């Protein structure tokens, strides 16, 4: 479940990142279509919120929130690192995290 929280945070950040013009262009060499922007950002924020819920479900709200903030920081820094040196892998990892999160949450 903690792993699910991490995956959700990473997937959420990836989606938010893709929802920004600069990073979308960097990855796909074309402008971010307007109809993609809202879903990406919506998905991103929902994933981050779910990540908090997942963390709180394991650890309780006070401990879970602290853990969630730590998870967010690490997931974000990891994403930036990947994005810079392995942009394709960053995207794949984001997709895999999004897929893995519900599985991990059920387990």
């Amino acid at each position: 479940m903690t792993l699910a929280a991490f995956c959700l945070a990473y997937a959420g950040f990836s989606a938010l990142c893709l929802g920004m013009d600069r990073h979308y262009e960097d990855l796909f060499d074309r402008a971010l279509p307007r109809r993609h922007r809202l879903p990406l950002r919506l998905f991103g924020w929902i994933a981050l919120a779910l990540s908090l819920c997942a963390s709180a479900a394991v650890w309780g709200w006070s401990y879970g929130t602290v853990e969630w903030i730590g998870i967010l920081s690490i997931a974000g820094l990891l994403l930036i690192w990947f994005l810079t040196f392995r942009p394709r892998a960053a995207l794949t990892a984001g997709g895999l995290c999004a897929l893995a999160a519900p599985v991990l949450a059920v387990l």
Partner: protein
Amino acid sequence: MKAKGEKAQGEEGLRQSMSWLHTWSGLIFGWVLFAMFLTGTLAFFRPEITSWMQPEIQTRPAPAAQSVAAAQRYLSEHASDATRWFITPPSDREPLIQLLYQSPKPKPGERGFVRVKLDPATGEAVTARQTRGGDFFYRFHFELETAFPWGRWLASIAGMFMLVAIISGVITHKKIFTDFFTFRPRKGGQRAWMDGHNALSVLGLPFHLMITFSGLVLFMAMLMPAGILAVYENPRQYSDDVFKAFKIAPARNEPAPLVPLAPLVAQAQEHWQGRVGRVTVNHPGDAGATVTLVRDAADGVSYGRLAPYMRFDGVTGALQEGEDELSATVRTAGVITGLHLGLFAEPLLRWLYFLVSLAGTGMVGTGLVLWIAKRRQKARPGAREAFSLRLVDALNAGTVAGLFISVAAFFWANRLLPADMPGRQLWETRAFFAVWGLSLVYAFLFQHRKWRDLLAAAAATLALVPVINALTTSRHLGVSLPAGDWVMAGFDLTCLAGALLLAWMARKAARAAKAPAKGRPAARPVAKPAVQQAVQSVAQSDMGPRQGAYEPRGDTP
């Protein structure tokens, strides 16, 4: 039109002034802050580092009640006349029983505290090599190895500068959301460092802000005593009121036997459904003795400094007073200080603490390098570098890279000094400071290769820590990994990971040092006096790690 223009100007004015504030508040205490961040990061693993530094001790924790009974046996035999006993039962992180007692007649100038560690299995004092272990990093983090109270004041002032730097940094940062995921190392120079600095700062911002603010709150009573002095007649009354668990009742000077402690511990565990973190006995053997049990800091986020407690009569064992539900104010203060200490954190969260705190260390480090990068970018190419720049750059390299070598040297000394050497813990500390000093000297002497060399030295010394461990003890990676001894294995693996990171940085630094000289031959006029040319090549190759060539336009103020 005019009003709008004025507003924009005023806004820029605020940004500009905040940028100035950020630059200078960050620089002045930058090196102290870097050291505080790095040692503080290590201090999250304080007991684990101590365990690694005393490899002779191999024991398993025993239940608290049983351990406290063993402690009582030992103390009534060895310290029956002490004014106070402090007993810390073993935990998952600290397998030993820790005792501290205050002898009634200390030597002049001493406070008379004696520390003993007991093996919970035998109830006997353990003998191991003398070392300060993780306590060194913990103490250095807020006392800077300076006499009380000056070190604490210095650390607090540095902390205040940090708080100013964080807040002014947030205001200065123009595009906090647009640049959220941006890191462009290929752009080189100031831009790359700025991106890195921003990423490390913004992503870890909740932690950085929390750790800086809560660090100051921990020293609140020292830093802002006015409120306490206005309400209380003396500071003792204040601490009795706030830290009730530490309250001391006077002795009655009539001998009376002390109640067995173990049943009280069992009673408290039952009552709290939690762990007992510390047992304090005041005036053991006196009719006025009291026994105070405090709940373990690992049991709750807010219990780091202010935890529930129970106080018993030391003769009859009757419950005198206690507090389970702390008031909202106390709990708020408890959460703030508890978050800083991180004692509540389970292994996973402790690693997150460690990593984000490392990002904070990186934030300070990149900030320091950025100061140089910004000024180099503005300087005319080929001009002789100002003394101030060389000074700051040398201090940067000597501290940012040098401190990692000092940490490794501290661990080396722990393994290489003879185990029975008198005062060896002093020499461990001396090794730390001597190596830091040597790094600074090296950084001043070898201007253009200091970054590469010091980072490479840091990587090498840190990578050799597990090797030296393997040569001097029987608890190396080959043994600790199969045995699942995660304290020893984790320490060695962390050293290796740190060495890898530093080696990567050293490689980048070496490349950056070569790049400008190779990349811009045309910029250098051919017919120049040899001396001037030499000076110029020094100035060019000495551009810090990952430094690009001169860029005439910088897009930051």
